[in-house]
């Protein structure tokens, strides 16, 4: 009998995100929040040529969704690396679940981080998670917000250029191609990176510093687009 999840790469990604949120005293992450953080991490991966596992996202009612992620999370719960903190089926449309990392999950993360390749992935997902937490809290200040906590990050994901493109040109449950180098998101990342790297004031900074600044700029772009769309609507 195997105690390994079927897609180890995605499972590791999930554990890194839950570990990052745990360290920021955010005890748990919702099902929706988890999906969207992984989507953003994939959408911006070209910032530092991060190699993440190939995940197929499709257009669902509440933005991009991947069944593979949910399967991995369910398996992590079954193996005891992740806890479900709250689950309610009162809303028949979708179940509400919040996930948190267990002690066993923390030990797995600690061991994984002994590998250099994993360190970089963990740093990348930590960066995306912490920024998602910041922007969710910022978005939660809006009294009209119906979302709670990290669920608010969905508002930024709706502004992602590849998602908008796939939604306008595709159909319900059609897939979003995040690896396509001609995609709008990929071009935006390259453009932003070029502008930031040409800034004289940052020329002595290392690649991680530049990458963090580029990702912050990209989040700010999505946030700014969200404000514009809210005001226009």
């Amino acid at each position, binding site marked *: 009998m195997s105690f390994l999840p079927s897609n180890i790469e995605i499972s590791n990604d999930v554990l890194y995100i839950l570990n990052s949120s745990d360290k920021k005293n955010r005890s748990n992450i919702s099902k929706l929040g988890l999906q969207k953080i992984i989507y953003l991490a994939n959408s911006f991966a070209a910032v530092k040529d991060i190699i993440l596992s190939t995940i197929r996202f499709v257009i669902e009612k509440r933005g991009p969704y991947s069944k593979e992620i949910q399967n991995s999370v369910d398996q992590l719960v079954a193996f005891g690396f992740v806890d479900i903190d709250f689950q309610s089926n009162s809303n028949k449309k979708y179940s509400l679940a919040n996930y948190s990392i267990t002690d066993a999950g923390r030990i797995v993360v600690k061991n994984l981080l002994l590998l250099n390749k994993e360190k970089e992935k963990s740093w990348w997902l930590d960066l995306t998670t912490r920024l998602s937490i910041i922007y969710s809290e910022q978005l939660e200040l809006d009294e009209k917000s119906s979302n709670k906590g990290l669920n608010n990050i969905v508002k930024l994901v709706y502004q992602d250029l590849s998602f908008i493109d796939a939604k306008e040109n595709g159909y319900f449950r059609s897939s979003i191609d995040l690896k396509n180098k001609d995609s709008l998101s990929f071009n935006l990342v390259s453009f932003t990176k070029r502008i930031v790297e040409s800034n004289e004031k940052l020329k002595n900074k290392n690649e991680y510093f530049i990458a*963090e600044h580029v990702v*912050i700029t990209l989040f700010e772009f999505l946030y700014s687009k*969200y404000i514009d769309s*809210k005001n226009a609507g």
Partner: protein
Amino acid sequence: MQDKDRIISIHYNSIYTRLLELDLPNVMPLEIKELCHNLVLFQRDESYQLNIPKEGICLVINFEKNYSTSTSRNIFDQSWISEKASNGNLLLENVFEIDKMGNSHLDKAEAGEKLISPVEISNFSIETSSCIIVQIIGNSQTIYFKGRPITDIPDVFSLNMYRSYNYKIPVSEYIKILKKYENYFEKRGRKSIFWKSKAKYLLIDSPEVHFIDDMYNWLCRNVSNAQIDEECLNASSNDRLDVRLTELTSGHLFIFEVKWIGKSKGSNYDGKTAFKRAISGVIQLENYLNEESNCVMAGLVLYDARKDKQELEWNKHSPWQEKIHFPPFVIALNPESSSTLASEKSRKRYKH
């Protein structure tokens, strides 16, 4: 109507950009972003709003330390300020040293220090050069680094002091920009940050540093299409330009030299020396223009803190270079309140 999200975003970004430019050692952009987030949320939070300290608080943020221990308190926790206020501690002390995550240094917090005036804070920030100092008074927030205010948010809930993007002024309309700055400075000039003794018309030591910062911060909030730099190097010499605006589309430069006349704690440029001092700024601009071929306009911004503000005879200096704006922009500093100034004016007008 001001959009709440837009207000938050603009405040966050203004702090983030300035802190990033400080080039603090071993501090990453994400840590700066989290700090900006915590600072703005702290001030907007209900627990702060219900317990606003009368004399404000000063957060000394030490980027080189980590004060996280099992017993340390995080000042960004909502309960921290309520507890401090209910214990009456905020009346006795208002300086709290924290690390970049907000964990407080307990020994410092117990020292019972108080810093209130901008001059005191400015001097304190020279002593603690590895830290930034955040002064929070009511809804305003000013950040000091190495003796200088690097950001100044007049109200975290409002953009009234900012112009929204559509109403910002393009740099090519620099005369309008300077006129608006002059109007803004009319009230600002009474602030104690600039004065050692208002009664004696005595400015603080090296006031030009504060004038440059003040003008720079205002321009950042009001100019639409330019990169704004303060105290930056000239293109091909070691001269420092006080304020430089680079038009984003054309790359044209607009440079300003800041000078002051009057009396300060260490210098006296009043009476006959005033004109000499002022014109030295024009000569400096002439030298800059010889090196900066991209410059389309150079202007002298003269802060006049004299009690007797006699007209300066600019025509005495000739020839006046074409690219140097004539006459220079003169910003008057008056320590008296509006009502005192009004009575003075009416007394002069109707003395016969």
